[in-house]
């Protein structure tokens, strides 16, 4: 019945009606993911289920590991053997993965780690959403390291950002975190998967010299060391210990400091490709909303309603949440007389926003926990309060 066709379908587009978790899995395979190690946890399990179904059909491998720690470990092991690998989890599982996530940063193993956030701490609210792992994504594992984390708001964006997560992981040889929440993971909406070949796929830079002369962390050509997988001819070593260019342990303070600075440079010197912010009614704005993920969807409704009431509200929405878009938030904040930061937690991103605007603008927090998402009315009330 042609009446029921969506606009997209009428234009000949292949529209899928997918839940967010399914979008992540489908996009991962489209991005070239060929290894998934997982462990069941609500509300992320559908990603594992979809990967279990899809991967063997494309020659990839799925394994349900015995625990979250093992899943993260298997993902890094596969990555070092050359795979494009991913795992998916939720809060408690993300906590368990953190030690090995740190190992991934240390050995520079590209991989994607999805956290479909739920209420916490501890077991918290397994079937209800939250955005309370934002800071954990940045600072969860011990030790210093830069983080790339992406938090999409819409399914089409989730599809493209999942691909981008793989691309960034490959380009910079590091784990990339994809933050969803239970709302996005379980909400179904239309997605038009782009046709293969119409989007960019990045593969890690490979070492092209004589494998027998491979030095795994030789950065003479740039901050990202060229890669050779295990069994690709170079018998190389790596370790979670601080190591030198050869991959063997070192306690030389200068070498360690140099490596740490390089880790940070990989991210901070490449913000033009890593950063991503979206604006909604971002011009001619007096009350600036800064929000991410599913909460930003409610904020958009609130902003429309505020505009109808004559309040010039607009939004900056970090899509790449780590590194936090400090400069963009500063510029946006300067245009506003006050800021509103709705987030589905007790207040995490607000610290970054306050710092970004040099504590020079009133910042109104809108926080909620308890499993029921922030409503447009709650955000609108905050906008009206500071307007």
């Amino acid at each position, binding site marked *: 019945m042609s009446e029921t066709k969506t606009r997209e379908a009428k234009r000949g587009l292949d529209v899928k009606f997918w839940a967010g978790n399914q979008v992540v899995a489908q996009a991962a395979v489209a991005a070239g993911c060929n290894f998934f190690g997982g462990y069941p946890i609500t509300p992320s399990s559908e990603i594992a289920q979809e990967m279990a179904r899809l991967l063997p059909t494309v020659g990839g491998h799925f394994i349900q590991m015995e625990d979250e720690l093992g899943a993260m470990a298997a993902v890094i092991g596969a990555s070092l053997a050359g795979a494009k690998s991913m795992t998916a989890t939720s809060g408690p599982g993300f906590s368990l993965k953190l030690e090995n996530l740190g190992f991934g940063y240390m050995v520079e193993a590209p991989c994607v780690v999805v956290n479909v956030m739920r209420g916490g701490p501890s077991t918290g609210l397994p079937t209800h959403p939250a955005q309370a792992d934002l800071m954990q994504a940045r600072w969860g594992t011990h030790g210093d390291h830069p983080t790339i984390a992406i938090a999409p708001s819409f399914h089409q964006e989730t599809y493209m950002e999942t691909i981008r997560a793989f691309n960034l992981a490959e380009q910079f040889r590091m784990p990339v975190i994809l933050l969803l929440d239970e709302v996005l993971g379980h909400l179904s909406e239309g997605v038009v998967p782009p046709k293969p070949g119409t989007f960019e796929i990045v593969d890690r830079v490979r070492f092209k010299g004589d494998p027998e002369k491979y030095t795994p962390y030789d950065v003479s050509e740039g901050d990202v060391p060229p890669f050779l997988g*295990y069994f690709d001819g170079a018998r190389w070593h*790596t370790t979670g210990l601080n190591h030198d260019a050869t991959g063997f342990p070192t306690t030389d303070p200068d070498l360690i400091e140099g490596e740490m600075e390089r880790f940070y440079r990989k991210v901070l010197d490449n913000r033009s490709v890593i950063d991503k912010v979206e604006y909604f009614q971002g011009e001619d704005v007096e009350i600036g909303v800064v929000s991410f993920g599913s909460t930003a969807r409610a904020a958009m409704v609130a902003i429309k309603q505020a505009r109808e009431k004559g309040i010039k509200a607009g939004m900056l929405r970090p899509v790449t949440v780590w590194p936090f878009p400090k400069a963009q938030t500063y510029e946006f904040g300067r245009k506003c007389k006050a800021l509103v930061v709705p987030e589905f937690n007790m207040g995490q991103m607000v610290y970054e926003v306050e710092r970004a605007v040099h504590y020079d603008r009133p910042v109104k927090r809108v926080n909620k926990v308890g499993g029921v998402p922030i409503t447009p009315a709650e955000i609108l009330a905050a906008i009206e309060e500071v307007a």
Partner: protein
Amino acid sequence: MSFNYMPYMRDDTLPHMWCPGCGIGIVVKSMIRAFDELNWDTHDIAVVSGIGCTSRAPGYLNANTLHTTHGRALAFATGIKMHRSDKHVVVISGDGDASAIGGNHLIHAARRNIDITLIVNNNYIYGMTGGQYSPTTPLGTKASTAPYGNLEPPFDLAKLAVGAGASFVARGTVANGRQLTMFIKQGFAHKGFSFVEVVSNCHTQFGRRNKMADPMNMVKWIGDRAKPLKKFETMGPEEQAKYFPVGVLHEDTGRPEYTEKYQQLIAGLRESA
């Protein structure tokens, strides 16, 4: 001519960090001899480890080597083996690494029957961290965290591996390197999860606290308690309690190997597509 180990080793990472007389050296030598007897090319071997003295072994081997986090070596190795099931994957681990913090991965790798060989250097103690008792420390013996004698009964690692489903389980000792080489070689050649327990000496941390500060005293103590399986089986329970069996304790060549089953799944899906 004596056997030349150096083609299998990285001479630039030597000297090793183990104490003089440490049993791990014998384990590594046996591994190398087994590689050699099987004609395995080190380009095709990954050696993965966790944390501890034993886990430093991969750094000295000229293969594809990975020194991971405490207890997780088998999980990292599982990812490597899944992605490159055509290659050899070996894990070397200590008793604490493999059976305390890593115990879950041990039983599940065994259950899965994935084609990885796990060699556990069982020296009854956490050596690197200073002689704390491990899951294999004998009852009543002393450790830095058991100053009045260990109150916990130990694991029988080989039995644990058999119970969890390992399709090849052997136990050897550092008192008999030739025999140990044979068991490791059989483990490497076995298709499926193979487990080789090596009863080994840490005279520095276990021996010193238990009147065996000299390495040879501890090696002798190990050798004296090792009985070939056949002999062990003829003993009564009281006598058995004084010894442990060495040999191939379990072998099942009929169980399907995990990565092979997965490759068959991929091939089947391709055919039906």
